[in-house]
């Protein structure tokens, strides 16, 4: 058994955010074959939270074993499970029981009620996490972390304090588990509920730090930010907030909304029928994969889905290119694993939190979007910020760290997948982006060229010159910038000043005006331009 001290330390700091800790409970529900999970956060007071699922449920024996052997699951990581009505099999994420540690980070007390299908007796378990104690601080009762030395002393005495296996008359049993105390008793249900199966986890004594963080105490200290606080009826409203006020969100002014967004990123939810994920569009296959898991999550009455809306595809420019790879394989020590992925390229990805690549194992995200692209070894500059994508991989469960929210980056499986991704990026994605940026019409320069030509024509009309057209054409680097032929003013797009640069737009227009007005010839202009460059160098 792992020492209580280690587990205590792990449980205190295993998850970076409350969303990550809640995701852990959702992941457990997912592994338990749930198709529906609901989370009640108790917003805005966060006095209590509840996570309820319609999964397989547990027996009293299962649970008793679980609390005494944290991390030991009856299902092995990577096992396939089939959900009735789902088209996609799930792979067990494993490490079942780590969720208990997640709870330890959020709350001082947990109540679990569960029942398996076909049974009428389930159980109710109450767990107290003993690294916390209730103390009156300035007249308010608060849960604080107990002194480590005191806890270690208790650990040392633990064998002597071991509770007898004899059950009390009411059939309940008390167990000391590695990070607290647990009381389990039978719960009898009505015969009509025999078919029901569920697990309900209720959290009370929410840690003050968690409450403060989720309630946005940072915002409350900032009067302006506090005034801005508003209600979001639907998930689309939250997506809009995250996109339009990302700076405020990152500053911690909307922690609850951020929690909802993060949960939507993490969980294997369906995609909305918008943009490229809608029917017959290029990423519909990924919508089918996610929909196939048949999983839904409701937070405080708000139905979550993948964090995409119409604006994602149009804000900051339209989508330039999409790459998708379906059911490919990556190999690890001769064993093939399936991987499907897509990448979207846009001028600007908004929100910025969606720049990078999100890795999903069995549909569940491991961490948030990774802007290092699994440590891609070449610097592609701003192109990194123009991509957003997801990788649906299999066989990675063994590479997960204990928080199931990050990878062991030296694990073979992780390295094999990163090689697969890097190859795609190096051979397909970044070369294509470079080509895109050179294509006509793909850059701002092209727009500048059109603007220059339009202005020259307008100028010609204004001063009633015979030149009625202006046209860019490739004439070679050493050829002059302008050439006049009949009614057309040709501009050499190979010339250093003819490439449509914004910085040189005024210079080109001024020179063109001198030619149109008859003040200078094209040759004279060329000489002047050369002299200007020479002067600059000097």
């Amino acid at each position: 058994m792992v020492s209580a001290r280690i587990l205590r330390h792990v449980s205190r700091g295993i998850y970076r955010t409350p969303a990550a800790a809640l995701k852990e409970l959702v992941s457990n529900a997912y592994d338990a074959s749930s198709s529906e999970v609901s989370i009640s956060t108790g917003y805005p007071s966060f006095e209590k939270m509840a996570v309820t699922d319609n999964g397989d449920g547990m027996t009293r024996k299962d649970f008793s074993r679980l609390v005494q052997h944290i991390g030991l699951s009856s299902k092995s990581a990577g096992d396939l499970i089939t959900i009735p009505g789902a088209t996609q099999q799930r792979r067990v994420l494993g490490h079942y029981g780590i969720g208990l540690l997640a709870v330890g980070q959020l709350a001082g007390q947990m109540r679990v009620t569960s029942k398996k299908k076909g049974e009428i007796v389930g159980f109710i378990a109450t767990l107290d996490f003993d690294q916390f104690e209730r103390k009156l601080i300035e007249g308010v009762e608060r849960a604080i972390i107990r002194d480590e030395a005191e806890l270690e002393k208790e650990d040392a005495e633990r064998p002597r304090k071991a509770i007898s296996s004899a059950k009390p008359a009411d059939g309940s049993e008390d167990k000391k588990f590695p990070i607290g105390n647990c009381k389990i008793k039978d719960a009898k249900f009505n015969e009509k509920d025999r078919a029901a199966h569920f697990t309900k986890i209720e959290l009370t004594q929410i840690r003050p730090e968690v409450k403060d963080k989720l309630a946005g105490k940072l915002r409350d200290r900032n009067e302006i930010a506090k005034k801005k606080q508003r209600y979001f009826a639907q998930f689309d409203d939250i997506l809009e907030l995250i996109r339009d006020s990302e700076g405020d969100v990152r500053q911690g002014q909307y922690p609850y909304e951020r929690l909802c967004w993060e949960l939507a990123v993490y969980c294997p939810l369906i995609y909305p029928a918008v943009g490229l994920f809608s029917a017959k569009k290029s990423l519909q296959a990924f919508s089918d994969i996610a929909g196939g898991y048949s999983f839904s999550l409701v937070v405080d009455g708000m139905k979550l889905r993948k964090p995409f809306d119409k604006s994602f595809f149009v804000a900051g420019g339209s989508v330039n290119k999409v790459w998708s790879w379906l059911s490919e394989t990556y190999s690890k020590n001769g064993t093939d694993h399936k991987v499907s992925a897509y990448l979207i390229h846009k001028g600007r990805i908004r929100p910025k939190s969606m720049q990078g690549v999100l890795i999903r194992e069995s549909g569940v995200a491991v961490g948030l979007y990774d802007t290092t692209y699994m440590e891609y070894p070449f610097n592609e500059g701003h192109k990194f910020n123009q991509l957003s994508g997801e990788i649906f991989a299999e066989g990675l469960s063994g590479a997960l760290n204990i928080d199931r929210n990050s990878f062991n980056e030296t694990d073979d499986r992780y390295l094999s997948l990163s090689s697969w991704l890097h190859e795609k990026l190096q051979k397909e994605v970044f070369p294509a982006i470079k080509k895109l940026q050179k294509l006509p019409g793909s850059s701002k320069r092209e727009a500048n060229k059109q603007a220059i030509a339009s202005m020259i024509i307008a100028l010609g009309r204004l001063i009633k010159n015979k030149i009625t057209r202006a046209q860019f054409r490739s004439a070679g680097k050493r050829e002059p910038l302008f050439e006049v032929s009949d009614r057309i003013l040709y501009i050499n797009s190979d010339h250093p000043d003819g490439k449509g640069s914004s910085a040189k737009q005024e210079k080109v227009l001024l020179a063109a005006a001198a030619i149109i007005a008859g003040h200078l010839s094209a040759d004279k202009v060329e000489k002047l331009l050369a002299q200007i460059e020479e002067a600059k160098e000097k």
Partner: protein
Amino acid sequence: MAAVDDKMAVCPLKHEVRIALWEKYIRTVVGAGHLKRYLTLYSPPLMDVKLFAEKGLIVFDPEKQLYVGVVGATYDAKAYAAAQDTLGGRLDLLLDVNINHLLDKPSKYPVKAKQLYEKFPFDAVNLDYTNSIFHESTKEDISEHLGALDALINRQNAAGAKKFALMITTRSDLKFAEAFLADINARIDANIKTTPGFGDEFARVFKCESADALAAAAHGKFLSVGLAKFVAAVLGDHGYRISSCDAHWLIRDAVKPVRELLHLAFLVERPPVPRALKKPTDAGRRLESEIVKFVGKHVDGIASIKETSDFKILYERHGAEIARLSTLNFEVATPEPEPEADRPA
């Protein structure tokens, strides 16, 4: 949330008021249709919203899990959390603010005020305060509830509301502010003198000829008429008239002290202004006509629901519906274990 609110939420007497009074008045506004906008000051588990959604008076969008057009407000964080927990989805707007303060000083809450103003006009406004709307402890000239009522009607007017249902609840057994009682006393007396129709009906129904006499003989009825007159005056200030008015008394007499809750409902309309109607006195008479009818209802037309005599009947009538609605929420449905005491040894 106060214990009394908890009790009221699942009380069959209150449910009777929801159906017999509130639903009736809302139906007069929407006919066979549904509410586009509904403002409610609620007590979790938001039975009114869930009831009206079941009856098709409020649209619930299952895809978005949204009660379309429903706006709620509370300033108690725990009640806010409980309200959110006890719904099948989200309200269109749920404000964690004292709505009286928000309406009175919108500049203090710019974003919330903007969110609320965008939802005006409402087809039904349910100010289910359940406590005194002008308690004697109120030091200001006007209570914040009544101040907010005026601001709210003003907003309804500005947003172009033509017809809406207004429901107001207050305890009538509590002591009201003396100034307010004097105000409604004066209104009633002035009405008796200036509007013969009102005076005659008042004398016929209450067997007395002054507001003082009525207040001494039947304080509840005095408050009922006085409040209706006050609301009529507020509405009149904004160009509205009462097209219909009714009340229900809910009397909790099973436990001492007895508590009386007055539920008033008004159908409010903006009257067309005929050219002939130019004198303010004519407009006043029109405004009073429904109050005269309302006075007449005090003979035997106002339902009085008593805990001691009606609880059992109403529980049989509404018990199952209350149990179903009160437990309806967005969470994954789970059965409740049997209470331990009921288990066989």
